[in-house]
């Protein structure tokens, strides 16, 4: 801390406020960045970048000086704290004080300091991690030394030139000016920002692109104008102004973001644009939001009631005191002491003073420790949820994360689940299933068989397989690290990159991320018919190429096939890597290949570059590669690649070549795609020997059978966006030398863009057939994509290009212009074919859905997928039942209101209430837009409620969140949203509980969520078991708290009748103040943390028990009052038994009050005992500890100081009491008399009207085999589709069945079998 503030002072001479002031007039809409080295001599004031934040980060909230005031200020935001401090301060007013003021402050100070210490510790951890990050080093150009020197991250300023090396973390947002990569590229990994593990390419700013020699910062004299810092990771606009006056546009492709890692690029140089807190990564970093659970909201109502009770009690006492005073008239009795000044108070005045005194005396009624205890219990609950083995996913080595600490009990009260489909219900492992090309369907039966085999495979085997899939991935991490070790061994300071938590997290994501490369997705068995055709086609093409015949002579169906596969291969953004040395090898291979391409393949305008490169290959091999990985591996690697070089030279076509060499090659290449479907398609193409070998920004190298490696000059990539729902690449085809557009996209869009069928009958037929197959695929639950192409003439291309370039360089509205440009290009397409990709269901999804539904949860699926696919998946995961009637709402016409259907369908549903639950509702996005309209939402909800399942397809992220919000607000239900992708974030944030699926599609959903699960099926245990437990534990604990405090305070209240309502307390103030904090605190914490009403097995097997939490059965409003009444009864017993036992005796105030305290403690503990369902040794220990603590403290306190502790002065009281038989007799009878009604009620309830949960507990007690019998029976019965509204119907049947067969001695747990 101290160091921190020192640094602070040293670093930033100008205080932030001053900086802010100066900034204001200067800053307009843009930020101008100059190079720092130009202004190095002009320190401070002159530097044009001085207004920008430096790279030092400070995420701490406090400094040494500000900690106390700031923390106190924050704590006083909680109303309860203000209240308790107010009461403690009230004690300092002499007229009203009840306790010693210092003592009264103790609990408040204790509570405040516990929270403060917690905050301090958290802040210290933040400070440490900040310091670690601030002290990481990087190379910054120094003008004085004319070279790059190592500096700490915090010393980096905007306008500095920094040099980045491979595997280094980026210290700030940097504009890429130079890269050692020959193509002026820089690869970065953005896993820390968006969780995507694929590498992304970043380009050097265009004006520095053609720089031949190494970038020299001293020669740089341009000015950069860009937008102000913002948190949009996917946007960066600006331009660079050179001294010559030339302007070049800057894109997000030029910006390297803080927190990313440089990969596969030896060195890069850039200029810092945003630093420290102004970087996009930091601006995106907002803390978790605060949710308040339903239980807590309910509790707050009752706290409010407690306040009312308190005020009533105080008022009563005040009036009583006034009357008591009044009865003596002017004759003041000796025991009515005058005020210290000797004045005589009027009855009214003393009543008013007394009112305040009573607030102090009765303050315990508002439990100061309740809030702290709840926090502690919740933290313990979170700990246990974390530790649950069943929620641990071995495959990805990840377990459930609780990101929100304060809503664990909400898990037990959920009523609606909103689930995403892709990646949540399904694995998001896209597997190529079948395709249709040129109107012919290839069913890929062998492939289907292979997939079926995976499904049947044991989970154990599957684990092995996926481990196999993981290995190369992990190895790539390792090789990075070993490379780094070699690289860094020269540098003086070892690089501590692994220190930060973010880094550790990134590594774990990286290592566990296997989704895109499991063998299931990679090893696709080709359809023999299609394979033959491909071979046939390519050999023909080879022949034609050899004989220099124009390619257009190829039969159109064959050319379609080859085009189809070329499109699959290149129309994507897949990056190729090999496990040992990603990217570099690929480059090497390509350049090596290119050498012999040069003779055979079509000339490209970049040939000179390639030859130049080739000449560099060998020196590069020696200069570059050894740096990256151990020499042995490199030699090994070169050797391995030589045969593949020869293979191309050899006359034998590679497909007939020895399988071994092919496999070797195949094993080397791995594809990293932004979305799993892309990877699936590339793998599918590879199965047909049409493999993607390398990808450069302007070049795609594809290896085709017979034809060898072809390089397609990549002219444009029009990336995928959700509006267009397609992507395109524009390439120059190396064989035909034509400019070709390959487009891939959703069938609905592509079909509309197909060239009008009047051009040819054949095309018409293809479109027709393809549409037919597409429908079939959709019916199978496959994801469909259409592939199309378009050939552009040079003139058309030139015309389009001109406008496209204009769009690219535009600064204002660039996105819109690019979008329009893409629309212009993607017209009049020629349909090649379509693919069907299977999105596999996750393990256990149908079972989980079934049991969640039995638990009374409504499950809605909200997906962006199209209707057919979604419906099929819904059937597959048992969300929809074949017996159900499907109510499908689609609108095609904007004027048509779909709710006309509703009005007609609802009367029928009223007449036959049972049928209602057999309805499934399917609604698509366009219709949903109407349904969510203010005027229709009530109708929509009415219909949706009467349906058993609801499926919303084609919904946008915004619609998802609107649906959740609608249901939550209108139906007043508890909602849970579960999803895995960025499109689910808004819905996750809106729901009462947001759950993210970790490890599939990135981290955004997880970051936004309250709980992150590795798999969907874990939701079952999380809700049914942990949710149930957390809810019932907390609900019982809160009720107990209210009871406990009311009971304790009521004792003092009764006493007021016997002390003239003077506010006197027979309980020593020490006991009074520490009773809650120490003596009775531990047992309830233990019970609140560990108590299990029903075992985990039973809860999972009888999901019906979840209804308990949904209906808030453990904590109903009337229960608060019942507890209050019980508390008053118990306090009456605890007060009046000692009262009568000591009536008219010579007992003194505290010798009488101490037994009452003891009795109250015993009663309170025994009460907890009757409410505790499971007694572990910890429960016993905690109760024993509480009692021991009380007596120890009492004995020590009563023996410590004969003349202190005014006014009670309890010297030797407890010691004397322990010698009196009367004390023990009281301790024996009072708790029993106090708890008799409750105990009796519980026993009667257990026999006469047991709650379902109690039945579950009785079930727990049965011997294992009988239990299994019953449960299996119940599963059959409960599984019937009519059940959600009558969840216990089946349980009733179960018990009557049991009656018929056994004589169940309920409760004793013994079953006497008497057939």
């Amino acid at each position, binding site marked *: 801390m101290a160091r921190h503030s020192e640094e602070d002072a040293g670093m930033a001479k100008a205080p932030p406020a001053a900086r802010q002031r100066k900034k204001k007039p200067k800053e307009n809409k843009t930020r101008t960045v100059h190079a720092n080295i130009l202004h190095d001599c002009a320190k401070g004031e002159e530097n044009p970048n001085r207004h920008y934040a430096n790279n030092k980060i400070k995420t701490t909230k406090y400094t040494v000086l500000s900690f106390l005031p700031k923390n106190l200020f924050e704590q006083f935001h909680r109303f309860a704290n203000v209240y308790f401090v107010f009461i403690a301060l009230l004690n300092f007013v002499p007229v009203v004080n009840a306790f010693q003021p210092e003592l009264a402050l103790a609990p408040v100070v204790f509570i405040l300091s516990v929270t403060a210490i917690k905050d301090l510790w958290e802040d210290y951890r933040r400070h440490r991690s900040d310091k670690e990050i601030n002290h990481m080093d990087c190379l910054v150009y120094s003008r004085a030394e004319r070279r790059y020197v190592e500096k700490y991250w915090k010393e980096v300023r905007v306008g500095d030139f920094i040099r980045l090396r491979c595997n280094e973390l980026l210290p700030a947002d940097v504009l890429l000016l130079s890269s050692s990569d020959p193509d002026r590229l820089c690869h970065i990994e953005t896993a820390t920002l968006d969780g995507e593990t694929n590498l992304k390419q970043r380009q050097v700013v265009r004006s520095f692109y053609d720089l031949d020699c190494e970038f020299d910062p001293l020669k740089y004299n341009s000015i950069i104008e860009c937008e102000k810092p913002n948190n949009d990771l996917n946007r960066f606009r600006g331009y660079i102004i050179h001294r010559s006056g030339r302007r070049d546009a800057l894109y997000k492709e030029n910006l390297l973001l803080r927190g990313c890692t440089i990969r596969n690029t030896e060195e890069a140089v850039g200029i810092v644009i945003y630093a420290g807190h102004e970087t996009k990564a930091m601006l995106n970093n907002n803390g978790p939001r605060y949710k308040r659970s339903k239980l807590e909201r309910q509790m707050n109502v009752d706290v409010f009631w407690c306040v009312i009770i308190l005020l009533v009690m105080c008022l009563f006492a005040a009036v009583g005191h006034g009357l008591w005073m009044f009865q003596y008239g002017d004759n003041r009795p000796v025991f009515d002491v005058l005020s210290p000044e000797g004045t005589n108070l009027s009855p009214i005045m003393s009543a008013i003073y007394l009112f305040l005194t009573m607030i102090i005396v009765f303050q315990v009624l508002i439990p100061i420790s309740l809030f702290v205890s709840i926090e502690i219990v919740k933290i313990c609950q979170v700990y246990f949820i974390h530790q649950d*083995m069943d929620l641990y996913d071995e495959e990805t080595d990840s377990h459930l994360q609780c990101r929100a600490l304060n809503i664990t009990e909400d898990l037990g009260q959920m009523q609606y689940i909103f689930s995403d489909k892709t990646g949540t219900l399904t694995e998001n492992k896209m597997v190529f299933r079948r395709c249709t090309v040129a109107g012919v369907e290839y069913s890929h039966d062998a492939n289907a068989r292979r997939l079926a085999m995976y499904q049947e495979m044991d989970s154990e085997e599957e684990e092995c397989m996926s481990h196999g899939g993981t290995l190369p991935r*992990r190895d790539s991490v390792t090789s990075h690290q070993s490379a780094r070790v070699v690289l860094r061994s020269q540098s003086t300071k070892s690089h501590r990159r692994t220190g930060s938590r973010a880094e550790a997290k990134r590594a774990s994501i990286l290592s566990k991320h296997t989704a895109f490369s499991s063998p299931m997705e990679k090893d696709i068995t080709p359809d023999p018919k299609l394979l033959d055709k491909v071979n046939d086609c390519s050999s023909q093409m080879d022949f034609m190429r050899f004989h220099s015949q124009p390619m257009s002579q190829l039969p159109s169906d064959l050319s379609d096939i080859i085009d189809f596969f070329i499109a699959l291969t290149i129309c994507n953004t897949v990056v190729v890597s090999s496990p040992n040395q990603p990217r570099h090898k690929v480059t090497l291979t390509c350049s090596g290949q290119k050498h012999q391409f040069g003779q055979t393949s079509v000339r490209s305008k970049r040939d000179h570059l390639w030859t130049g490169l080739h000449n560099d290959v060998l020196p590069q091999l020696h200069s570059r590669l050894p740096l990256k990985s151990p020499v042995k591996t490199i030699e090994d690697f070169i050797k391995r690649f030589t045969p593949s070089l020869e293979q191309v030279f050899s006359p034998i076509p590679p497909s007939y070549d020895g399988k071994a060499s092919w496999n070797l090659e195949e094993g080397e290449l791995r594809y990293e795609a932004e979305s799993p479907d892309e990877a699936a398609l590339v793998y599918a193409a590879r199965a047909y020997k049409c493999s993607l070998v390398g990808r450069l920004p302007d070049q795609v190298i594809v290896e085709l059978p017979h034809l060898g490696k072809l390089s397609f000059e990549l002219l444009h990539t029009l990336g995928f966006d959700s509006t267009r729902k397609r992507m395109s690449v524009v390439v120059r085809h190396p064989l035909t030398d034509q400019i070709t557009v390959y487009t891939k996209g959703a069938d609905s869009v592509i079909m509309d863009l197909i060239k009008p069928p009047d051009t040819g009958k054949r095309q018409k037929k293809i479109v027709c057939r393809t549409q037919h197959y597409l429908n079939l695929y959709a019916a199978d639950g496959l994801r469909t994509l259409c592939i199309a192409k378009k050939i552009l003439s040079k003139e058309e291309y030139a015309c389009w290009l001109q406008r496209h370039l204009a769009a690219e360089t535009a600064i204002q509205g660039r996105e819109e212009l690019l979008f329009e440009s893409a629309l212009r290009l993607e017209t009049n397409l020629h349909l090649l074919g379509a693919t069907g990709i299977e999105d596999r269901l996750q393990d256990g999804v149908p079972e989980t859905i079934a049991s969640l539904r039995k638990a009374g949860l409504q499950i809605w699926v909200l997906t962006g997928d199209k209707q057919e696919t979604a419906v099929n998946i819904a059937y597959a995961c048992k969300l929809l039942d074949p017996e159900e009637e499907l109510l499908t709402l689609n609108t095609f016409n904007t004027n048509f209101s779909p709710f006309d259907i509703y009005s007609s369908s609802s009367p029928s549903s009223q007449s036959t209430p049972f049928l209602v639950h057999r309805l499934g509702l399917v609604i698509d996005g366009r219709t949903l837009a109407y349904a969510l309209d203010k005027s229709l939402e009530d109708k929509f909800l009415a219909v949706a409620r009467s349906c058993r399942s609801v499926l919303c397809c084609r919904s946008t992220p915004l619609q998802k969140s609107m649906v959740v919000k609608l249901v939550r607000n209108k139906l007043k239900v508890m909602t849970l949203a579960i999803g895995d992708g960025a499109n689910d974030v808004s819905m996750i944030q809106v729901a009462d509980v947001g759950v993210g699926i970790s490890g599939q599609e990135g981290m955004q959903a997880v970051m936004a969520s309250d709980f992150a699960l590795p798999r969907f099926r874990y939701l079952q245990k999380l809700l049914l078991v942990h949710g149930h437990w957390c809810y019932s534990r907390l609900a019982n604990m809160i009720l107990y708290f209210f009871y406990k405090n009311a009971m304790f305070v009521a004792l003092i209240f009764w006493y007021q009748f016997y002390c003239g309502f003077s506010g006197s307390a027979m309980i020593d103030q020490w006991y009074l103040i520490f009773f809650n904090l120490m003596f009775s605190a531990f047992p309830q914490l233990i019970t609140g943390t560990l108590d299990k009403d029903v075992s985990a097995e039973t809860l999972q097997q009888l999901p019906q028990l979840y209804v308990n939490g949904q209906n808030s059965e453990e904590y109903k409003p009337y229960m608060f009052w019942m507890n209050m009444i019980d508390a008053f009864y118990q306090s009456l017993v605890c007060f009046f038994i000692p009262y009568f*036992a000591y009536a008219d005796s010579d007992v003194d*105030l505290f010798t009488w009050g101490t037994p009452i305290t003891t009795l109250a403690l015993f009663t309170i503990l025994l009460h907890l005992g009757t409410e505790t369902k499971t007694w*572990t040794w910890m429960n016993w220990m905690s109760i024993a500890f509480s009692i021991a603590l009380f007596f120890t403290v009492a004995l020590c306190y009563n023996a410590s100081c004969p003349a202190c502790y*005014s006014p009670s002065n309890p010297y030797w009281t407890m010691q004397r009491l322990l010698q009196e038989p009367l004390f023990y007799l009281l301790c024996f009878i009072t708790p029993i008399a106090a708890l008799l009604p409750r105990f009796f009620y519980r026993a009667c309830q*257990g*026999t006469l009207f047991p709650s379902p949960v109690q039945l579950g507990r009785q079930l727990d007690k049965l011997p294992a085999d009988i239990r299994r019998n019953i449960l299996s029976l119940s599963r059959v019965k409960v599984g019937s589709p009519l059940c959600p509204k009558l969840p216990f119907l089946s349980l009733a049947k179960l018990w009557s069945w049991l009656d018929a067969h056994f004589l169940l001695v309920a409760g004793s747990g013994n079953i006497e079998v008497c057939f």
Partner: protein
Amino acid sequence: MMASSYSAKDEDGHITVSGPGGGTLRNKKPENTAFKQQRLPAWQPILTAGTVLPAFFIIGLIFIPIGIGLYVTSNNIKEFEIDYTGDDTSSPCYNCAQNFSWNNTKSCTCIIPFQLDQPYESNVFMYYGLSNFYQNHRRYVKSRDDSQLNGNIDSLKKPSKECEPYASVDNKPIAPCGAIANSMFNDTLKLFYNDPNGTSVPILLTSTGIAWWTDKHVKFRNPGGNNANLTAVFQGTVKPVNWHRPVYELDTDPENNGFINEDFIVWMRTAALPTFRKLYRIIQKNNNMAPTLPRGNYTLVVDYNYPVRSFEGRKRMILSTISWMGGKNPFLGIAYITVGSVCFFLGVVLLVIHHKYGNRNNSANISN
């Protein structure tokens, strides 16, 4: 070969990644311990009629005998009580009570004859009892200075502000200060046995041993130690307003004078309830076989100093023997018997419930 090297590297890589971060991250798999998996062995009682039946009967069976025992014990205690407040015109103390207030210095004596029907065998405890006297009033209870009573010289000269407004008179500190001391009970009670032959024999009343041992020896001390001349020590202080004598003249016995006067100590132990008694004297049992107080006529002679009429209080003199469980109080025995019977009765109810519904309850109820 390849595979093995992979896994080795894998291991290394993992350590370097997670090592500095937390050390425990190596494998995130939770430990399979009973505690962490919430599978601690536990006793799980289920409260039903059947299970709690025995408890009710056992409680009943234990409580009823205890109750009877306590009741009998309490009944064996002999107690005699005389109200000498003097409200009544027939009361011998009527005159004293009428004229009396705190300011009177002249004492008024009243003589009350009474008769004991039974002989009191063991030690007899003599109490004075006050009713309607709120010694537990919040401001009253606080109005004392324990430090002064513990013999602290500084506190003697400068009483705590808790004693206000009874801390000082004319800038002279009051010793002992405070409202409790100020309102000390100052009636003198004397007992005479009227022999059948007509002579009146004074009964020896022991005035020591009536306070707690710790109070007399630890909590209360005279300033300046035991041997000091009390008159000198209390020089410079004044007596409480309502007192007739200063504190160092409470008794002639130096061991029972000043702050360690046992009557004073007993008074300073504030009573819990507005009706209370305080031990006044002990009548020691003689060695011989004669009862401590034989049957017969007695006379109680009261120096009537303490006014209670203003708050409608009452004054009593109580003679009582005690048992192991204290004074005469039948309540606890009755309470035990009652609770025991109720438990027994509820046990029977539960038995009926258990027999009637215990077996069939579940199905019968749920199907409703």
